[in-house]
């Protein structure tokens, strides 16, 4: 049974059909690439999976449960976490607080305890502090715990977002262009990080990325989207050699040449 399955998913915004009849599935432990030209509808697919938008048509099944149209919070609790193409951190909170805020799902103290700041609260806060540190260590941000999130350089902000997603303890992790704006060295670094977290946390990953070398390196299987529709699905080899993919990316002339 696949971990995630999209069945004929369509999303229309007024007249614009951003995603049209897309179906694919992801098995547990897999890492697949989701590629396509700008505006193809990749991010919209993430938004549909995570409940930010409700599909106009079709179904999304995760871990055996139909999550079509469920609220983002319940989808997170079911085990899906994501990062955003345009980084969305809690800017005015510190790096550490960004992680701890996510971990609060596990904090089982009540309002009364919180108001009086009972020892229970301080104990749990300390526990979550330590746990946050672990996640920050994984992405290599321990030196910055007290900095405000928006004071970090771009590349580190992306890593913080990944750490925040990991802290949600997901089964499925959606990464939306994690390598955007990174130089080749940083890309190598990122590939290693993704491989590491996949192994450590036993993750299934869908990766949207324009850096083809990153996708080729990480994803044995790739889904290609063009103008909201699924163009093809196949192994890295197949996609690389497919004329339709070239055409979608480079235009008619190049593909024929």
């Amino acid at each position, binding site marked *: 049974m696949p971990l995630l399955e999209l069945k004929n998913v369509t999303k229309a*915004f*007024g007249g614009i059909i951003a995603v049209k009849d897309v179906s694919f599935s992801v098995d547990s432990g897999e890492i697949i690439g989701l590629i396509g030209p700008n505006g193809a509808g990749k*991010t919209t697919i993430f*938004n549909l999976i995570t409940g*930010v*938008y409700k599909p106009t048509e079709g179904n999304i099944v995760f871990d055996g449960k139909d999550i079509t149209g469920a609220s983002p919070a319940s989808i997170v609790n079911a085990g899906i976490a994501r990062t*955003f193409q345009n980084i969305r951190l809690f800017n005015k909170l510190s790096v550490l607080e960004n992680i701890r805020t996510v971990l609060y799902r596990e904090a089982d103290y009540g309002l009364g305890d919180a108001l009086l700041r009972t020892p229970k609260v301080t104990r749990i806060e300390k526990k979550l502090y330590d746990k946050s540190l672990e996640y920050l260590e994984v992405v290599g941000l321990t030196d910055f715990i007290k900095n405000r999130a928006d004071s970090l350089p771009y590349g580190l902000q992306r890593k913080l977002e990944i750490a925040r997603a990991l802290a949600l303890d997901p089964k499925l992790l959606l990464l939306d262009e994690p390598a955007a704006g990174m130089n080749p060295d940083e890309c190598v670094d990122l590939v290693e990080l993704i491989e590491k977290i996949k192994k450590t946390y036993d993750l299934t990953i869908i990766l949207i990325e324009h850096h083809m070398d990153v996708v080729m390196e990480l994803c044995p299987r790739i889904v290609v989207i063009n103008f909201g529709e699924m163009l093809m699905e196949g192994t890295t080899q197949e996609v690389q050699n497919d004329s339709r993919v070239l055409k979608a990316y480079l235009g008619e002339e190049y593909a024929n040449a």
Partner: protein
Amino acid sequence: MFLQTLITGFSIGGIYALMAVGYSLVFSILNFSNFAHGTIIMLGAYIGYFLISSFNLSFPLSLIGAVLGAALLSLLNLRLAYNPLINRRSPSLYLMITAMGVSIFLENMVYVTVGSHFYSFPEIFKQSTIKFFGSDISPLDLAALIFSLISIYALHIFLTKTKIGTAIRAASYDMTTASLNGVNMTKLIGIVFLLAGAFAGLAGVFLGVKYMVYPTMGWITNKAYIAAVIGGLGSLPGAVIGGLILGVLETFVSVYISSTIRDVFSFSMVIIFLVIQPAGLLGKYLEEKV
């Protein structure tokens, strides 16, 4: 009695619609509640009043003066108070707070400079009434209604038939795409504020003629926000329909039940609407781009 109440209701509703249209226009493009809109309406009423009483201009000329004056004030408001925030892409909460500040500032400036007198417009239409199916209809009500509808229709034509209008609608749909397509956003937002101000001036004069001119008349302009919520924030047809519905219902409540609870009633409408139809009559849930 019924017909008379209905017509009065529609005429008040027409003024509410005039007020709501400007507010909604700004909301649709900048996504924030411009609480200074009511104050511009109030200032429009003052301009109209002083033109007609101190400068002895005719009513049409004063109306034009008020429209131009309010449009200019609205643009000034944008340039001085909002633009610094828009340029920084501040959150809409900040714009809303600024708008509130502008409104408090201007309203109380009027208080300390002009004073809290109530001014009434000189009689424009003779106090006579028109008989209409046995009901007494005031010509002022009728004129206000007809004039409101005509000007809103003109705005509709402008937004759908001209190039600038189309650009405004495109921008209200998606700011980023509009600026990509080579539309100059700064200019466009300026035009939107001029338009909103012009409608504020129009509404202000009618409001002043119907009630009176005084610093806190901005309170009535809160009805613009209610009308917009009922119709659906950011939707122009919604603002018009919301305004008309609000005007009629309110008039019936004050005639048949009690005028003290009229305002409470209007605001309860907002709450009721949000319970049964959260996005208003014609608004839709905005799916924020993520």
